[in-house]
């Protein structure tokens, strides 16, 4: 009996399988709003018209930001009416639909329309970062001021000046540490916002702050906070070895914090890049941090000014050597060459930084050779000269920090080269078959550039080229596009609005002659 049932099931299944597609499949005749059209206001409904009654199955609407929501459709004769969600911004929407024909055979496709204007994924992403960029930059300058000016300043006061200082120096350094703290706090949220996307209003939510905390830069900021707290603590401690040690620990914390994130920390090899970065940061904090306290010592005609200046002077030569060597190492690791120094944003920032640092070095040499030795001999005029020079130094340092903070937005030459290579590789698809080959490149606005060649390598003459693009992982049924002829063997599809990035299945239907076609299929990675 069991065997009988099993056989029966097999027979029924076999018949059903083989006899399944016995009627015509349904075909989409059109949609309203029409395919690829631009409408002024968001429509409440979308109408899909078929050549026969169909049964709605899966409908998913992708908004311009790539978010998707399942929507419902109701049948009305040969048409389907799809309810669209009310809220929605301007840009291109894509409705992925899947229906069952009268014969039970499922068919699917994707219909697109735009509200206000057509949007493209790449364009949307650049627009997103620009809104928060100035704030991120300002906050980063604040963080650097806290680290270099605050932590470096505390180190100078407690370790170099050995605790002999006017009260105003303490207050100034504490203010810098506070500024660094506030900037650090906001940096968490802004970093998260930059990663998640969204506008400044989203700072009211917890998500960006958590994302910022969990990011690599969040690790840097956390260790930075430790450094700021240690430095503040050092200022409170009585002058001596404990205070000097605490200030030194703060400096070390800054050095380590720098290695936890940023593109310099990720340059290969890491065993060279990270120590170089740590040394560079520590040296910068030592030198940069000494400027403001020394200026205050000099301005207040403090008794310890001369001695401190001399001790610093002795320290600065090895410091500058470390700064230069580690900086050079980092520049090489980041792929900086003479050409990229002028040819890339990163290089131009580096060139600007180098000019500023050279000016600071010149002033430093002036101090060391002439002004500081004279200071030891006393005299009010010498104090005034040194004070002015230090004032200029502090201003230059601020500019350097502003320039360095700008690196947050510019990939180093090594990453530019890598990114370009990756992009070329990713957004280019080669399909080889025995009969022909296709090279498909995706352009900035979702344009597809298609080059066809025959088995002999010559351009393949074709009557018609159709492109089907589907993203099975995201549940997007094929978007169908007709390519236009540019030149023999060279075809183009303008402005495909990919609702999401990722791996897209691309299918090319190439009509070579009335009776001869070529079907090519491959996977295209959309950024």
């Amino acid at each position, binding site marked *: 009996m069991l*065997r*009988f049932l099993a*056989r*029966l099931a*097999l*027979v029924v299944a*076999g*018949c059903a399988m*083989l*006899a399944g*597609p*016995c*009627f*015509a*499949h349904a*075909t989409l*005749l059109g949609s309203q709003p029409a395919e690829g059209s631009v409408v002024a206001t968001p429509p409440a409904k979308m109408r899909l018209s078929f*050549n*026969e009654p169909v049964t709605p199955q899966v409908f998913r609407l992708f908004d311009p930001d790539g978010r998707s929501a399942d929507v419902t459709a109701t049948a009305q004769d040969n048409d389907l009416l799809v309810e669209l969600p009310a809220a929605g911004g301007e840009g291109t929407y894509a409705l992925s639909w899947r229906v069952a024909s009268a*014969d039970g*055979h499922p068919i699917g496709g994707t219909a697109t329309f735009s509200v206000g204007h057509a949007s493209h994924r790449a364009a949307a992403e650049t627009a997103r970062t620009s809104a928060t960029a100035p704030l991120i930059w300002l906050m980063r300058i604040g963080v650097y001021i806290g680290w270099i000016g605050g932590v470096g300043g505390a180190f100078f006061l407690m370790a170099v000046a050995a605790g002999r200082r006017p009260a105003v120096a303490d207050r100034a350094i504490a203010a810098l540490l506070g500024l660094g703290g506030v900037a650090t706090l906001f940096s968490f949220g802004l970093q998260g916002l930059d990663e998640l996307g969204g506008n400044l209003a989203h700072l009211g939510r917890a998500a960006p702050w958590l994302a910022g905390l969990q990011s690599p830069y969040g690790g840097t900021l956390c260790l930075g906070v430790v450094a700021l707290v240690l430095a503040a603590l050092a200022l409170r401690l009585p002058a001596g070895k404990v205070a000097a040690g605490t200030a030194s620990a703060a400096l070390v914390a800054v050095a380590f914090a720098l290695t936890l994130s940023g593109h310099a920390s990720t340059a290969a090899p890491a065993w060279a890049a990270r120590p170089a970065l740590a040394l560079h940061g520590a040296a910068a904090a030592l030198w940069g941090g000494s400027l403001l306290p020394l200026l205050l010592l000099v301005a207040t005609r403090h008794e310890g000014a001369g001695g401190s200046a001399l001790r610093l002077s002795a320290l600065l030569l090895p410091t500058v050597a470390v700064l230069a060597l580690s900086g050079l190492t980092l520049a090489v690791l980041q792929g900086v060459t003479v050409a990229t120094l002028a040819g890339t944003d990163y290089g131009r920032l580096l060139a600007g930084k180098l000019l500023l640092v050279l000016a600071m070095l010149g002033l430093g040499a002036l101090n060391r050779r002439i002004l500081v030795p004279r200071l030891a001999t006393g005299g009010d005029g010498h104090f005034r000269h040194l004070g002015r020079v230090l004032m200029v130094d502090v201003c230059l340092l601020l500019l350097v920090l502003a320039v360095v903070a700008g690196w947050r937005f510019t990939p180093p030459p090594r990453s530019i080269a890598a990114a370009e290579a990756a992009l070329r590789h990713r957004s280019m698809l080669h399909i080889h*078959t*025995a009969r022909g080959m296709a090279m498909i490149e995706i352009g900035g606005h979702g344009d597809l550039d298609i080059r066809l060649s025959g088995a002999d390598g010559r351009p393949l003459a074709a009557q018609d080229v159709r492109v089907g693009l589907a993203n099975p992982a995201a549940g997007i049924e094929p978007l169908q596009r007709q390519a236009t002829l540019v030149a023999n063997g060279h075809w183009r599809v303008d402005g495909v609005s990919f609702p999401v990035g990722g791996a897209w299945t691309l299918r090319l239907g190439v*009509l070579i002659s*009335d*009776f*001869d*076609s070529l*079907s090519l299929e491959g996977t295209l990675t959309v950024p």
Partner: protein
Amino acid sequence: MTKTKLAALGAAALLVAASVPALAHVTLEAPQAAAGSTYKAVLRVPHGCAGAATLKVRVQIPEGFIGVKPMPKAGWNLDIVKGKYEHGYDLHGGKVTEGVKELSWTGNLPDDYYEEFVFRGTLTEAFAAGATAYFPVVQECEGGVAERWIEVPADGKSADDYESPAPGVEIVAPAK
């Protein structure tokens, strides 16, 4: 009912089902033929182009299918395109080097109707057993649209893998 009978019934059902390929596509009625035999091709056109009426049916004759004669059809104009074959073939003791390369019927077939188009020819021994002779068909419809049943499966694929496969007939070894 015995097990043997049931199994036979099942096999028969499968065979019947197998001989009725997807009716949504343009297909040939007889799915198999022997090399060296005369083959009567019956092209079945189940529907128009997405609802539009069919105005013309064109079929390309594959190399190796010779001595082709279409069956006239009331209400339809027949056109025959002749040309040189790539190879020469023996037919009834003579050498054939040219013949029909393409057939077309011009008329009007609304989407709601079903129609068959018939022609006959000889499948030469140039076809090896196990191979498939494909007859690519272009269906031209009202409004300048067309359905092209011209996809020939690549190695390792079958007609089922394509949306618009060319109708084909599988060649079997001639009966001894």
